[in-house]
């Protein structure tokens, strides 16, 4: 305990921020960089001293036991919570004091652990909300149905179908989002997030509730999305096959602290990680 305290008091010296993937170009500004990010809830340190760097087009995984603070990290990066210590930077820009909306405009998009679709709207409209800041027209053109309304609506529609095509969901465009099966809702959340044209995509347990076949498909699609959109992806997942299969770098969180970082092989061999997941081996 005293040792921890000592460590947090020496935060003035910035730690060398190294990428999980060793061969990344060091001169390039990373998409995401967090420096000693942390938050307290009434004295409880939910996340502490969280340092992570993700470069362009990297896929990183954030794993850890339940209650380790993974979703809290997402909430800090997306500005649902304002961190009590440290900073998060997107493309070199500090997110300090920004709202969720402003952070989104800088290029962060996310999905949610407990799905948050616009249930009463159609699948296509959900994607259109993602396109909100990309294909615009003002309220007056909308009310008076000016030419701009028609052209932009058409563009939105076409773009929405194009995005839905990633998961072959065009046929579902007219369905009510809330009526879709679970797996399709998760995929729709990803499409909607991609619609915002993000630089960094945060996926919170994308495979939760999916069957092995669907998970397999999702894995391929995550890699495909990265290649097609040239974006960085950070994902939280309990399905180790998916994490080990698709993530180039993995960060392990326990009790709000990073306990290990590295590639899939390194993490699997790391005794600290094994201990966190399986508990301490009894002596003797």
């Amino acid at each position, binding site marked *: 305990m005293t040792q921890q305290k000592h460590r947090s008091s020496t935060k003035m010296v910035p730690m060398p921020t190294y990428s999980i993937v060793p061969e990344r170009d060091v001169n390039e500004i990373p998409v995401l960089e967090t420096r000693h990010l942390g938050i307290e*809830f009434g004295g409880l340190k939910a996340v502490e001293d969280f340092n992570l760097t993700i470069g362009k087009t990297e896929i990183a995984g954030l794993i850890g036991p339940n209650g380790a603070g993974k*979703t809290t990290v997402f*909430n800090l990066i997306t500005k*649902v919570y304002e961190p009590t210590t440290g900073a998060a930077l997107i493309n070199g820009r500090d997110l300090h004091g920004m709202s969720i909306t402003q952070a989104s405009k800088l290029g962060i998009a996310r999905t*949610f652990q407990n799905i948050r679709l616009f249930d009463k709207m159609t699948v296509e409209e959900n994607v259109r909300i993602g396109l909100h800041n990309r294909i615009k027209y003002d309220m007056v053109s909308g009310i008076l149905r000016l030419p701009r309304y028609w052209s932009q609506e058409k563009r939105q529609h076409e773009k929405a179908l194009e995005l839905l095509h990633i998961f072959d969901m065009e046929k579902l465009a007219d369905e009510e989002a809330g009526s879709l099966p679970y797996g399709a809702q998760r995929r729709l959340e990803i499409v909607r997030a991609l619609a915002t044209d993000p630089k960094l995509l945060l996926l919170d347990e994308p495979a939760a509730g999916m069957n092995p076949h669907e998970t397999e498909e999702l894995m391929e699609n995550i890699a495909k999305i990265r290649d097609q959109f040239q974006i960085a992806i950070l994902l939280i997942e309990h399905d180790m096959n998916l994490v080990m299969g698709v993530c180039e770098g993995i960060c392990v969180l326990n009790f709000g602290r990073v306990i290990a970082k590295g590639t899939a092989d390194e993490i699997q061999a790391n005794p600290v990680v094994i201990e966190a997941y399986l508990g301490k081996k009894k002596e003797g």
Partner: protein
Amino acid sequence: MTAFLRFLINGVSLGSVYAIIALGYTMVYGIAKMLNFAHGDVIMVGAYIAFCGLQYWGFPPVAAILAAMVVCTVLGVTIEGLAYRPLRQAPSLAVLITAIGMSYLLQNVALMIWGANPKSFPQTFINSSTWNIGEMSISSATVITILANIVIMIGLTLFTAKTKMGKAMRCVSEDRGAAELMGINVNRTISATFAIGSALAAIAGVLLCSSYPILQPTTGSMPGIKAFTAAVFGGIGSIPGAMIGGVLLGVIEILGKAYISTEVGDAIVFAVLIVVLLVKPSGLLGKPVREKV
């Protein structure tokens, strides 16, 4: 100076009525997470029952108050069971609209039974005498209201701290799901909350009409809204908050009416509500809540 002191005491007295009503709001809001819009009209029903007891049935004052409390308790629990319980999982908009409907129902039923003509509330031991302190004369109703408020506050604080039901209430207000898992009967706890709140509303009704003896079907709605304002002011869910909020609001209202303008007294009260919500939405003693994502 004497005038100011008299206004101040009257304000504290009116505020005490608000505080007692605010308790009903704050407890229900804390535990059922709903704004019971009909609470103000339960006050009116309580006052009418007490009125009937005194005027028509020949009850002694204490019996009339007890009758009002019993009727209001039954009424509160019935309202909760019939109208609010089916909506436990519904969006707050639906619950609020239902509560507004309930408020209207009570007002209109009262209108049918007792008519629109204002009734003048009879004199009881509460408001029969006036005491002179120096140059200042104070009605006994003022003093009794303040004393009743203090007794109720102490009683309720002890109740929530010491008794099993009180602890259950605190649990449910903290985390309904967890309380249910711990074997607490949530529905019964919420019913008990409505019962207590409504019984207090009956007392508030009698006290209110002892100081302002005009009784009509809309008597409860304005004090009800102001008491909610008081609950918000003090921090919703907090029992001492309801007391502080109520008393402050009563003082502000009386002083505002006395020194600024009678017509805009209500406007001042509501302006206070708005300022409080903007500056400190969790109220004076409330805790801020965080949405789970």
